[in-house]
Each structure stands twice: as C-alpha cells, then as structure tokens.
C-alpha cells in the first residue's frame, strides 16, 4: 500500500465524515463544523491530485538539482485560495448562527425552520395550513418559547433585526 493510497483514503474519509455530519446533525453549529471537515477533505483531495512520492515542493532553491521532479503547483495555488475563501464562508455562517441564536434562542434546525415559517406567515398575513396534529402545532404548543418570549409574541411586533436581548 503506497503512501498516496493512505493519504487519499484519509481525504475521502474526511469528506465522508463531513457529509454524514451534515446529514445527521440538527444543530446548526455542528453542521458548520461538519462543513469545515468536508471542506478540508476536499482541499486534501485536490492537493493530493498534484502529489507524488518523489516530487519535491515547487520552489527553486539555489543548489537544488535542475532536473529534480517537482509536484504540481496548480492544485496548491487552488487550495491556497480555497482555504481563505473557506474561512470567509465559515465566518459568514457563524454570523448567521449568532443572529439566529439571539433571535430564536435555539440552534435546532427543525425548530428554527418552524419558527421562521411561523414568522413569515405572521408578517405576510398568509396563514400556513395547519391542523391540530401537524408538527407545527405540536412543536409550538410545547416548549419552544419560554414564558417571557411568549409574552413578547403576544404583544406582537418583535421587529426583525432587533436583537432578542435588546
């Protein structure tokens, strides 16, 4: 088993872990972490496409042999930009999560979706089709809102863009 196979299996394993994490978790923060794993797996896979065992880093040093084989610089440059873009994307996702947490006070994907639909329906005046058995009614009647939040909602107009703790 060559070193390339081990590295490639590692990269594919990271991709697998990230994807599975995205599907399994309901917590949005854990989904972002899974996305980070997925991203590093993809980056590794791309950079391994230019890797081979006898190749040296693509940097011309004084005294290095002229004909020495170098690894492919293109995947390295691609991944270099991809990493920085990844940081930006993660920061944006984190900012959205912070606002969601401040406004809805939950990180659970299903609950967030329920409350968003509820708020959208309330803002647009369109009633969402709901029955006593629908998950919407079930979740809403249970524990999402603490008492003070419910009180706020009775009063009606919590403006979007206002922090929940403001």
């Amino acid at each position, binding site marked *: 088993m060559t070193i390339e196979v081990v590295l490639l299996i590692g990269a594919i394993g990271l991709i697998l872990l990230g994807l599975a994490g995205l599907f399994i978790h309901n917590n949005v923060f854990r989904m972002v972490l899974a996305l980070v794993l997925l991203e590093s797996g993809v980056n590794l896979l791309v950079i391994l496409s230019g890797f081979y065992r006898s190749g040296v880093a693509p940097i011309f040093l004084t005294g290095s042999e002229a004909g020495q084989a170098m690894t492919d610089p293109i995947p390295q*440059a691609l991944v270099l930009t991809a990493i920085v873009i990844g940081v*930006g994307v993660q920061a944006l996702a984190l900012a959205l999560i912070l606002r969601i947490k401040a406004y809805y006070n939950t990180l659970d994907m299903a609950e967030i979706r329920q409350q968003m639909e509820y708020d959208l329906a309330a803002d647009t005046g369109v009633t969402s089709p709901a029955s006593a058995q629908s998950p919407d009614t079930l979740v809403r009647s249970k524990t999402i809102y603490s008492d003070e939040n419910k009180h706020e909602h009775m009063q009606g107009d919590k403006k979007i863009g206002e922090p929940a703790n403001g």
Partner: protein
Amino acid sequence: MRNVSGLLFSGGLAFLLLVMVAQLPFGQPLMLVGQQILQVSPNEVGTANVVAAVLLAYRGIDTLGELAILFTAASGVGLILGHLYSANSGSNKKVDKSGFITLKGTELMVPLLLVVGFYIIFYGHVTPGGGFQGGVILAIAFFLPTLVRSDAHLDHQLINVIEGLAGAVFILIGLWAMLYHHAFLQPFFNSVFVKGHLGDLFSAGTLPLLYLALGLKVGAELAGLLSMIADFPELTGEQNK
C-alpha cells in the same frame, strides 16, 4: 429517514471516490498541467516559488475574484452583526478576565506576529509563504489584543482604510500592466521593478507588490471579520437586560 438516505448518499459518494482512486497510476505525476508551468515560469515570471507565480501571474484574475469573495463575506458579516456592535460598543466596560500571563504574553506576541507576518508576505515569492498566509498572521496580530483585553477595540475606520487602499493598489497595479501592453494583472519588469535573479528579494518585477497588497487586504479583512464576531454582545458575556 432523512438520516438514512443521507448516510447512503455519503457512503455511495465515498465508494465512488475510492473506486476512482483505485484506478490512478501511483508513483508518477497524476496531472501534467503543472509541468509546463514549472518549466516556463522561472523565465516568464522569475519567482522561485512557483505557487506564487501561478497565484498571481497565471491566475491573477482568479485571485482578484477570491478577494471579492472575501470582501463579500466580510461585508455580509458586517451587515448581519454590524449595528449590534456599534450599539454596544459605547457601554463596553466589562472587567478584565484575562490573567497576567495572558496579557503579557499577548504584548510579547503582537510585535513578533507583525514581524513574522510581514516577513512571510515580503518573501512570499522566494520561499514558502505569501500574501494569504502572511495576511492571516497579520490578522491574528491585530485581533489578539481585542480578544484578551476588554478595553482594546479594533479601529474599524483604520481597517476599512487599509482594506480599501490595498484593494485599490492591487487593481491599479493590474491596470498599470495594461499601460505597457501586458494582460490585466500580469506582473511585469522595468528599470525600478527588476526581474533580478531567481531567489532574490528584489526579483519578479511587480509581483511582490501585488503580494503585499494581497496580504494587507486579507489581513485587514480577516481582522475585521474576527473582531466583529468576537464583539457580538452574547459572546462578550454582557446582556443589555
């Protein structure tokens, strides 16, 4: 059900990738695109670090697009979190929770980080490193004090100025190349920006300048991003209630 189908999908994708990997010929270069660049870039661009040549000479516009993405992410974070920060910054008088060692360690680290960051940016075309890596280190150097000391706040005005100037310089150097009938953003040589010898600090024409602008922009962008997230009221532990 969603979990099962999701797991099946990821398992299938991993299997597909593994099957493709099993068919690769190992022990030799898998991709042949880079070999030509390795041969021509020392003469065409004159950087010892071929990755820098690819990044700025052969894929300059992609790098500009990457800066645009980073700018979009930073302004998106500013849009989402920004006014919370500004509403909060006036009454920010919380107690220092950091200990003596953390405070002094930060004071010691900041100049070192600045030196290392600028070194990595300036020598990006001759050694491993460059604008992105050095920029991230610069961002940490600016961000670290705001993380440790509660009274230290990043000057967002200054950060914006640096960011805008660096971005403008990057594009202006690109336009300057067009003045001499080169392609947009292509590094070029003249009497001031010499081609030099392979591996010298003053070599590769305008490419180090491009790298410097890139590094400053990345550093300012990331420092602003990090400080905006760190200043979020719920994270600083103070509630307005």
